[in-house]
């Protein structure tokens, strides 16, 4: 028999039966002073401060001489400027960020990439590694000039739907980000699956390429896209340059069942932590994985409730 559950009731069960006031009429609303150092959270429509002694920034609006939050998030204040940084938002790129993206469109000399930003990112043909010309060049990377023939066979490098890992190189004048994959670490992704979490949960780490001891590699894109794949031997090609066949291949390697189930387990742990809005770091993921293995939790039970709370409590206690 298939079991159905109920929707969780709001903890504040009297919410609908009590009388509430709109901020406009509630003169009981006290204007909070922002001098306290603790981060303050707002909900949309909450009065943040008076408009007389502050300026409104992003995520706020002014109504009846009061600065009111328009999003749910944390209040930040720089001198007189009050902004609210939304909890759930699109990814705000910065130069040098590592992102994972998906090709949405092939255009003349460029690819459009979905990277969870407000606009599609752009990957220029000139900012990817092109095959060939490696021998002629002393550099480990093939900095060869792009040719007309490359423009005609762009789909042999990346086609629609392909996933790639790249770095934010620059911004265009309209704010769209420009990506590059000119490193051996970057390029097309295979041998695994994608997990999407809110981008706020990915902190800037020393390295976003994480190797877990269970034979699983992770790429934590700062845009919230996480690639979970089978561990690959790094420095495979070393200094000799790169193997275009392997870099732009669509073929997966042979992956054994143990690795596949480890990938599924890691993915579910990530989803679970993201569900509970726990920021993801390498140590936290490792701890969580060890705990799950130690407690012999079945992978599919991770998505079914109770185990999740225990796991999150454990991770919360240790960090």
């Amino acid at each position: 028999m298939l079991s159905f559950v109920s929707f969780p009731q709001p903890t504040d069960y009297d919410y609908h039966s009590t009388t509430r006031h709109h901020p406009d009429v509630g003169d009981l609303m006290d204007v909070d002073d922002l001098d306290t150092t603790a981060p303050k959270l707002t909900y949309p429509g909450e009065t943040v401060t008076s408009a007389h002694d502050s300026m409104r920034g992003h995520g706020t609006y002014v109504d009846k001489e009061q600065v009111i939050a328009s999003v749910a998030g944390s209040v930040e204040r720089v001198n007189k400027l009050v902004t609210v940084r939304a909890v759930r938002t699109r990814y705000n790129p910065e130069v040098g960020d590592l992102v994972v993206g998906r090709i949405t469109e092939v255009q003349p000399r460029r690819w459009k990439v979905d990277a969870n930003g407000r606009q599609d990112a752009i990957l220029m043909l000139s900012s990817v590694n092109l095959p060939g010309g490696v021998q002629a060049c002393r550099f480990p990377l093939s900095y060869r000039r792009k040719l007309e023939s490359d423009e005609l066979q762009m789909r042999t490098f990346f086609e629609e739907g392909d996933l790639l890992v790249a770095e934010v190189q620059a911004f265009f004048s309209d704010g769209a980000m420009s990506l590059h994959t000119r490193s051996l670490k970057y390029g097309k992704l295979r041998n695994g699956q994608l997990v999407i979490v809110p981008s706020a949960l990915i902190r800037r780490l020393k390295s976003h390429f994480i190797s877990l001891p269970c034979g699983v590699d992770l790429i934590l894109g700062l845009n919230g896209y996480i690639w979970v794949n089978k561990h690959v031997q790094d420095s495979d090609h070393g200094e000799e340059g790169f193997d275009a066949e392997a870099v732009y291949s669509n073929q997966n390697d042979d992956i054994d069942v143990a690795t596949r189930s480890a990938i599924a387990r890691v993915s579910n742990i990530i989803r679970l932590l993201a569900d509970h809005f726990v920021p993801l770091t390498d140590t936290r993921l490792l701890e969580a994985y060890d705990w799950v293995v130690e407690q012999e939790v079945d992978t599919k039970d991770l998505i079914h409730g109770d185990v999740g709370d225990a796991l999150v409590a454990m991770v919360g206690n240790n960090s």
Partner: protein
Amino acid sequence: MTSLSKAEKSYIQSSLLSDPPLRLDGRSLEDYRPIALETGVVPLANGSAKVCIGRPGRGGYVQEAGGVGGGTEVVAGVKLEVAGVGDGEGGGKVACTVSCSPAAYPSLSSNALDDLQSDLTILLESVLSHPSLRPNNLVIVPGKKAWAVKLDAVVFADGGNVVDCLMLACRAALWDTKVPLTKWVEYRAPRRHAAQGDVGMDVDVDEEAGGGFETKGESRATDFELTDYWDEGEVLSGRESWPVCVTLNVLSNIHFLDAKLQEEASVPLRMYVMYAFPRGKPILQTFRLIGPEVSTIDQLRGLIKRAESYARNTWTGLEAKLKDEEARRGVKAREKFYGRLG
């Protein structure tokens, strides 16, 4: 619908075909994600339900960026409207409409979204509007007026398996529907006062609520009025014969249930099988094949057999949950009532 790279697709397929078969989130082939259901979510509808497959525990956040990996959420509502009955019609039509929120399909253009909506509407209409399933207590004034059932379903988020979710929500909403009680009103030529030259019309109210005692009354009943009744009305008759849907995703010789979007994108063949089990007797209502793959009759026969047992699982679960919901709402309504008194 979802774009998937070749490597992802082959990873999903080879995992499914490996031994033991493995899915993206570690479920076995016949496992569903957690399903949450609630009836009576739309206060102004005669019956309504909300169903959410996958991560219902986290409040309203079923949607991840791009719709990938989140859950599927559908709200269905039934509104009864008074409609005239034409000559020779039984009365009491069921009309279905499915609308998809653009937020559920951010990658689709508005034309593609319209196509999808009409596809789902046609699928639903062909099942639920079938004359064999028409409830027979929708008639208000025989031959003149009847309740028309307008069933509207909205897809708020699509994380895969949207048809199963739609059917669960529609079935729950129809189950929840209460038909308001009505009385016929008939205009009768005055008999007693006729001699005194009274030319006015007397209004008489038929005491039977849609009853069949007064057979000759049929021709005279012209209008109706709503009775003042403690409850919202009576349930639709034959509500146990609305079907549930099971979607089988077929990949070579295996099949699995409740696919996520990525899994849906990587299987070549899908089967929608809709079963109803009124009084335990299985009735196959609809069977559809979607996808480019070919399959043999023998294979289909086996799959339909399996689908029946899956559907029975879903059916018993849903039936139990709907009874729970009715009990829960009964308790809630009583508390509210006593709360008002006290």
